[in-house]
């Protein structure tokens, strides 16, 4: 019984080191995201936006895996998490055609839509 309690405590002790490492990575990720809107960012806006979203996904994965213990509980919970993520992604993608069609709208105030190009 005492051995089990000691092992439990040791497990928590090990985890604390992991939590601090994850914390460090999350802080660095936040700083990287913020840099993309600061004057020192030297690449295009599109590159910045892509990086920001990649970093957001990375942060979310780290929080879910380590802080929410999914790394250890995944085999018990995947049947609930995977459908949610798939359906949530499908929900967003199902609405994307509206963005695609919006390219035919006037995108600049006062500017007429560009004339259709006709192949010779």
């Amino acid at each position, binding site marked *: 019984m005492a051995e089990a309690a000691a092992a439990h405590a040791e497990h928590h002790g090990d985890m604390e080191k992991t939590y601090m490492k994850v914390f460090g990575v999350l802080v660095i990720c936040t700083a990287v995201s913020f840099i993309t809107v600061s004057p020192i960012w030297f690449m295009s806006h599109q590159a910045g936006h892509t990086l920001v979203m990649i970093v957001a996904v990375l942060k979310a994965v780290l929080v879910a895996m380590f802080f929410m213990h999914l790394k250890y509980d995944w085999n*018990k919970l995947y049947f609930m998490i995977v459908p949610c993520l798939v359906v949530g992604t499908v929900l*967003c993608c199902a609405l994307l055609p509206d963005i695609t069609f919006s390219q035919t709208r006037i995108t600049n105030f006062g500017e007429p839509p560009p004339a259709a190009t006709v192949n010779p």
Partner: protein
Amino acid sequence: MSEHHHGEEQCAPGIPMPTSKLAMWIFLATEIMFFSGLLGAYIVLRFGSATWPTPHDVHLVEWMGAVNTFVLICSSVTVVLAHSALGKGQISRAAMLLAATLGLGCVFMGIKAVEYKAKIDHHLLPWQVRMTVNDTYIKELNEIVLPKMEKVQRNPQQETLFKELQAFGGSISKGDMPVVADRVKQALALHKQAEEAFPPSQYPDLEMPQLVPNGSLWSSLYFALTGIHALHVLGGLVMFGVVLMLYLMGRLGTQHEVLVENIGLYWHFVDLVWIFLFPLLYLLG
């Protein structure tokens, strides 16, 4: 009574985790769907709109969003360490870490309140945002901004802009620009020049009339997303408060490890939602 098990399925043992933890995960699964719908709607409306306000247009301060992200990350660490401390039987340390989490949550809400106040002060509530050059815009420009600008000692650049603004104000008063889109485009260009010629830090009284195309849609989405998220934060703070009350009553113990883990799971999810809200609202403007 004889036992008949014919045709009955041999049930596998339940999922090897506390029932309350499983219930929390089921709740979080519904939350994932809820926020997927909200974020999906935001993405479609934001990127499907012909024009969208920049963070600067709507007084969003990126560093405040970044600080709030940092605060939530810190609070996620403190709650996970509190759970760990409770597992090791360090009750006082766990309570201290939970109190720190509660404090960090309050800091988050405080910064959010400051941000909301800025929106309210700048009349950026959904029903207040001016999205076009209408009669009230013309009146504000001609009767408030231009008379104030006239009284200021102007350099040549400022004088040129002043004349342009006077001409613009005169022409729209007379209805010379019947196409609304033309008026908006011209006004936005002049606003940009005015901000360079009369920096708001030096001329706070010379702020141009509010004009934010699509501002109402932005405002509705901003307040819906951040408001619902803030309500979740508030819910978490109440739960941390309840656990701290248990500690103050001397009833917090290792038997509450699962409870703290469940509250922690909820709190991490709140952090996770903010991880996506921060870039979408503040950085992709």
